[in-house]
């Protein structure tokens, strides 16, 4: 039992980061591709801008997740940016 806890303690944060990178990163990119609709652009151009930029945002999120000192900070960073984007995305939907 102890050994198992030990294993979770050691691999847990890494798994958490991988989840944050794969899914958190995608969610953030998707959210930004919606939030961009709040920009003063025509709808088709705004939609395309969101799509075009999304992969850069995804990449930046992944790099962030693995660059910071711990998994908690990784999630915190994603959450803060998401919180900033959410009202924008909300305003257009």
């Amino acid at each position, binding site marked *: 039992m102890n050994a198992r806890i030990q294993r979770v303690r*050691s*691999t*847990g*944060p*890494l798994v958490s*980061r991988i989840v944050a990178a794969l899914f958190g990163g995608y969610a953030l*990119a*998707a*959210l930004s*591709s*919606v939030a*961009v*609709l709040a920009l003063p*652009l*025509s*709808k*088709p*151009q*705004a*939609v*395309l*801008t*969101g*799509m*075009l930029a*999304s*992969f*850069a945002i*995804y*990449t930046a999120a*992944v*790099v962030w997740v*693995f*660059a910071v*000192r*711990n*998994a908690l900070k990784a999630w915190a960073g994603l959450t803060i940016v998401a919180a900033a984007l959410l009202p924008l*995305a909300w305003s*257009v*939907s």
Partner: protein
Amino acid sequence: MNSDNDQRVAGRGIRQTMSSLHTWTGLLLGWILYAMFLTGTVSYFKDELSQWMRPELARLSEIPDQAVVAQRIADEFGKTLAGASQWSMRLPDARNNSVYAFWRTSARSPGQRGFGEAYFDPATGGKVTSRETLGGDFFYRFHFQFHYMPVVWGRWIAGAAAMFMLVAIVSGVITHKKIFVDFFTFRWGRRQRSWLDAHNALAVFGLPFHLMITYTGLVTLMALYMPWGERVAFKTPAERQQLAAELSAFIPPGKPSGQNVPLASVEEMVRQAQERWGRDQVGRVNAVHPGDAAARVAVTRGDPGRVSMSPQYLEFEGATGKLLAVRENVGGAAETRGVFYALHLGRFSDTVTRWLYFLVSFMGTAMVGTGLVMWTVKRRQQLPDPDRPYFGFRLVERLNIAGIAGLSVAMTAFLWGNRLLPHPLEGRAELEIHLFFIVWALTLLHALARPARSAWVEQLWAASVLLSLLPVLNAMTTQRPLWHSLAEGDWIFAGMDIMCWALAWLHAALAMRTARQSAVSPSRSKANRRAPVTVASSEGAG
């Protein structure tokens, strides 16, 4: 392997974490990436490869008048495709000696297939009677959607691989602060250092290209990967059509009137487009509800000569031939997307630019390949018992052999199949593809059965022999051997033969080099393992 847990991650600097990120994103989908890179690289010559794979179809020594050809094929459709609700033809140009067309039939009778496609002879208007093959389009489609699976799955896998690649590139750059110093460092004959230096040199030299090609690759399918903005923004079909018109030559799908009116002169319509863009610059002719009073025809500009895939087209009323609209501009974001798309496909290129695309892309393939090999080379030195490596190591080692050397064998086998399978033969095009995968699977079995070094050497030799004999096979099975194509100035066939020999030489050189290394490997010098401090601090990707 076990040094990547989070506690270690926490205590390390950003370059070390980025190095790990680079290693694992590069490795996990590395074989898929390698296959995407290599099939993508050869796809820059997709049209030429398709011509080579349909040797019965005569070479066009000059481009026929596209307006005349368009009328010829439209007449053919008028006779044979009376019920079609839509057809689309790609006209012959400098790289295509046939007309590719597809069509939809409104499924009035239940037994009818809704979709059809075929190649037509521009000289006669009849269907091409060449051997049935997917041609270069097989590698092209495999490059972004693979095979034996639903198209959408394949595209998602390709997208995931491209995303991993993008992360691997960015983390690779962060790992190498001294990226340009590293470029001028090449330590020959030092095993791991040589692999690392080769990987770095290839990566740095091609860096702008790799970044561009990966990002633009994602852009080609971005509507699939990131549909959320579109879903939120557009509520009605009319709004969605507004977006579609920014992305491709789009004719609003109106309802047919039910009243039969033959199509006006397609030749005249293409003629107007030629006046606008130039004689050989027309790409496609699309018709919706041809033969109906409500017919619409779009004549689209071709890809050569402009670095954008944004749609430029003339829209005509089908029944009268009246020009309804000229569309040559799209919005800023749409134009950005059009340029990205064009940069990825490189169809705007003239011959020299296309060769540059091919070479840099080939270097990208080599970069992925050297990265994969480095993973094992680096870890082999740290194995507790080099004769009995752990499972993960053996897995990567074997997948590398089949993924890299095996793919060369399989791709060449595909071309052999094209020359050897009889025709006509039911399902011939699909058999060529089965052959590709059967041979690829055999190379994996071979890699599992043989000692790693021998497997490398044998498969590289196999690829070399198959490649070097392909021009001989071509001379024996077609009317277009090398001496003939050289005399005729047929550079597609001659170029193919010469390229086969160049690639055969490359594989032979790699095989000999690998064999030589096997011979010296037992007395692996300790010198490589000295100075662990330098290695740890300057270690880049790996």
